[in-house]
């Protein structure tokens, strides 16, 4: 705030006016964005309302959805949310473990560890996630390894995200300056103590916001697991009822709404988390 008492009243009020104008401008921008969002959302809903608009001789037809089908099947699809969230939580947990190990391996001076880490990341990043999921569901049974659907799904997603997230961890670990390690060493800490007490806590704080983003995209990538037909999450349920009654349009729209809302909720919490973490920096 402009509380410059020593410079006299005139400049102070001038600063105050500019400051107020800036705040007003920012607020106006947010309001306008909000209104535009509302309009876009309204248009999108209107597009599926089934109402026809007559403008002169031109008739604008919107899409008619089978509302009876939607009402009847909404809860069936919604029941998949728990599976979607369960897969996502388990997978992100596995991914975090793998990512941390891979990141440590990548920073290791021991050749085999470095090799294992880079090999894993290269293999996973060099093949499609879709293929990896099918590998766990379809290829492993050929070797006599039949995993329960959710286990196979979690392993595929966890392995995949772990490879990508290892970069985030590595960046987090390298963001901790050399001086921190030296200070810990000078105190007599062992390498393990230095890692646990000094490096990791700082690296994690750096890595948590991007990991939140990864988690949000994982909730959506978990839909790929439906393709195997063994895990009854949102996408599987949507395609099942959609195909059965040839109401794919309605079923997919409902699934999309569920994913979108879930993402919005998670994004909200992630924003809160990020704000809280950055507060500790000041």
């Amino acid at each position: 705030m402009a509380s410059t008492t020593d410079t006299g009243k005139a400049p102070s009020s001038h600063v105050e006016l500019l400051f107020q104008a800036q705040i007003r401008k920012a607020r106006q921008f947010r309001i306008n964005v909000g209104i535009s969002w509302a309009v876009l959302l309204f248009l999108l809903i209107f597009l599926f309302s089934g109402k026809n608009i007559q403008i002169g001789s031109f008739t604008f037809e919107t899409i008619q959805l089978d509302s009876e089908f939607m009402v009847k099947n909404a809860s069936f699809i919604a029941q998949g949310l728990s599976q979607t969230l369960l897969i996502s939580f388990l997978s992100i947990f596995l991914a975090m473990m793998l990512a941390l190990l891979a990141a440590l391996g990548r920073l290791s001076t021991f050749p085999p560890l470095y090799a294992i880490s880079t090999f894993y990341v290269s293999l996973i990043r060099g093949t499609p996630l879709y293929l990896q999921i099918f590998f766990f569901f379809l290829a492993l049974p050929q070797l006599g390894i039949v995993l329960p659907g959710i286990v196979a799904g979690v392993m595929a997603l966890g392995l995949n995200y772990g490879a990508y997230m290892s970069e985030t961890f590595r960046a987090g670990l390298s963001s901790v300056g050399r001086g921190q390690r030296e200070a810990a060493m000078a105190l007599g800490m062992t390498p393990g103590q230095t890692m646990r007490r000094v490096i990791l806590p700082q690296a994690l704080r750096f890595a948590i916001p991007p990991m939140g983003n990864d988690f949000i995209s994982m909730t959506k990538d978990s839909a790929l697991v439906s393709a195997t037909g063994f895990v009854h999450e949102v996408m599987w349920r949507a395609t099942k009822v959609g195909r059965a009654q040839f109401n794919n349009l309605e079923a997919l729209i409902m699934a999309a709404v569920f994913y979108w809302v879930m993402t919005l909720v998670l994004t909200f919490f992630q924003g809160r988390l990020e704000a809280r973490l950055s507060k500790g920096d000041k």
Partner: protein
Amino acid sequence: MPLPIVKISNLDKYFGRLHVLKDVSLEVPERQVLCLIGRSGSGKSTLLRCINFLEEPSHGIIEVDGIKVPADTKGKERRQLIHDVRLKTGMVFQEFNLFPHMTVLENVIEGPVTVKGMEKDKAIALAEQNLDSVGMLFKKDEYPMRLSGGQKQRVAIARALTMEPRVMLFDEPTSALDPELIGEVLNVMKKVANEGMTMIVVTHEMGFAREVADRVLVMSEGQLIEDATPTELFNNPKDDRTKALIDRYRSGEA
């Protein structure tokens, strides 16, 4: 003559092909305040960092309070010896290197609790005593981010002291500070010196060297070129390179 706390024998250090320390030998007796001066790149920081093995000596022997570490010791024995040496030495860095995720008090008790396995209550009592003596007790629950450079460095000194070392190593402790904050750190260092701590201080602060040091070493191109009391050094420098250093300091002062 009291026994040396730090004894360096025939120390050599290479960075790749660069020969940064050339056959350096040095003994520092107990309670001595030794200032290491010299132009940047002369090897004075490297020499200091070899004492607690933040730099690995290429050849020679480092001995701290009776713990002797020849450069060619290997493996587990070496790790143990280096660990023992680090328990005897406290280090203060140019960039403070406080742990940003810990409060001031947590920073200071971290070493005693994690490394020495000291009980937390005991560590806190000791830490508070040392924070008080550097004048930082009132900020004990703050995070380092909220402290000025001078305050950070005072906390860093308290952190090193709380490990109860036999010798304190200072690596250009005031070089990262705004000029108006240098005084408070130098005053704390004076206090530590007056309490009888053995200190090795790499510094550009000629004033501090002249006022507080018992002995000043001048380094140039990896060698000790002059070893004198501050009075001798400032009044009657022998080496031309030392004269140049002193003249520069005098002209800066005038």
